[in-house]
């Protein structure tokens, strides 16, 4: 399964498997501030692994009227990952985003109900492959 992920430059929304469990705990850690702000974090998540400078997109169905935070985490110490949200036409849709080493986040207030894409990038990493996981929260 891991090889399968490695072969994909883009992975559209895969369930999180055991090997990204560590990354998932970091993604949840990145989402903690939003729980405190009244957001509900989904139990479902996306995950995979990437080489340095590789990107993946995950697809999300978002609803106008809600506000969302996407939170990305990796278990790899020293890695730098980024996350940005685009609409179905490829336009940047986030209203804010942040990055801190192995964590990143982006906030979206959808102007339309529909499909959005979270683009995940591993900018730097001491490892050849970097596991990642993304969770999202809504309110």
């Amino acid at each position, binding site marked *: 399964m891991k090889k399968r992920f490695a072969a*994909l*430059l*883009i*992975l*559209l*929304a*895969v*369930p999180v498997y055991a090997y990204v469990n560590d990354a998932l705990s970091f993604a949840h850690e990145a989402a903690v501030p939003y729980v405190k702000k009244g957001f*509900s*974090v*989904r*139990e*479902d*998540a*996306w995950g995979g692994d990437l080489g340095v400078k590789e*990107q993946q*997109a*995950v*697809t*999300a*169905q978002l*609803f*106008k*009227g*809600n506000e969302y935070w996407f939170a990305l985490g990796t278990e790899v110490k020293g890695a730098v990952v*980024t996350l*940005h949200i*685009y609409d*179905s*036409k*490829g*336009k*940047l849709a986030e209203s*804010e*985003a*942040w*990055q*801190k*080493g192995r964590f*990143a986040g*982006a906030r979206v207030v959808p102007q*339309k*109900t*529909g*499909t959005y*894409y979270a*683009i995940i990038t591993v900018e730097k990493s001491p490892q050849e492959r970097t596991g990642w996981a993304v969770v*999202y929260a*809504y*309110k």
Partner: protein
Amino acid sequence: MIKNIRLIFALAIAAGLAPCGAQAVPESIDLSKFPAAEVEDVVVPVPSEIFAVLDKLGSPNWRGELRESLGKNTGNRAQVALLLGTVIAEGFIAVEAEDPTKVQEIGREVLVLAEAINVRKAVIARSKSITEKADAKDWKAVRREFDGALQDVRGAMQELGDDELAQLVSIGGWLRGTQVLTSIVSKDYSPDGAELLFQPELLTYFTNKLDSLKSTRLGKDQLVAQIRKTLTAIRPLIGKDDGTKISADSVEKINKMTGEMVAAITQSKEA
């Protein structure tokens, strides 16, 4: 004011948080350059994501949307998986209705249905927690437990090699959630409410899954065939990328179709 801005920046730097504005984030990207254009798997939204918007648009009568009967288990595994999905969706409706008795009944039923498809162990703790949190009227926590129950059931099915059956749980939940969404929007139509139905990738994902079932038994299942047909019929009604509004007529049609499917899944006359 400037002092405040400086203070915010200083705090941000101290916290090590870098706003991404500091880096060059492309304003647009060419999605077609990403090689896998089609959806393989998707995180299916839970009904409460949609219900949260409906609550902001008006004051739906959630109690009026609850079904009296949760449905009958026929022993057919496909039907049980679909039924489990509708029952979990019912849980989200009962949470909106803030009905602890119904929530507890649903929590118990989730356990019974999970047992019928050999994944009881995965949801014992969730079922117990649903009961306790409903008792405490901690609705946010109950919502989280239903979401967790859905993931735990699907995860356990996947571990047993029943990935396709796990998809049916999601589809059952989506059908019941959409039935309720369309029922509420039909009662007080607004384009904003109807726009919640614009879920093209999700619908494509579900139909692709049903079109590519490897299990011959599931592929030939009459209920699964009916659902496949219904999803295909719903697709043109949920709107287009050009932003065409979803009409009141389309909302009613989708309500009828999803209602018939939920009735077929639950083996009840209540549509």
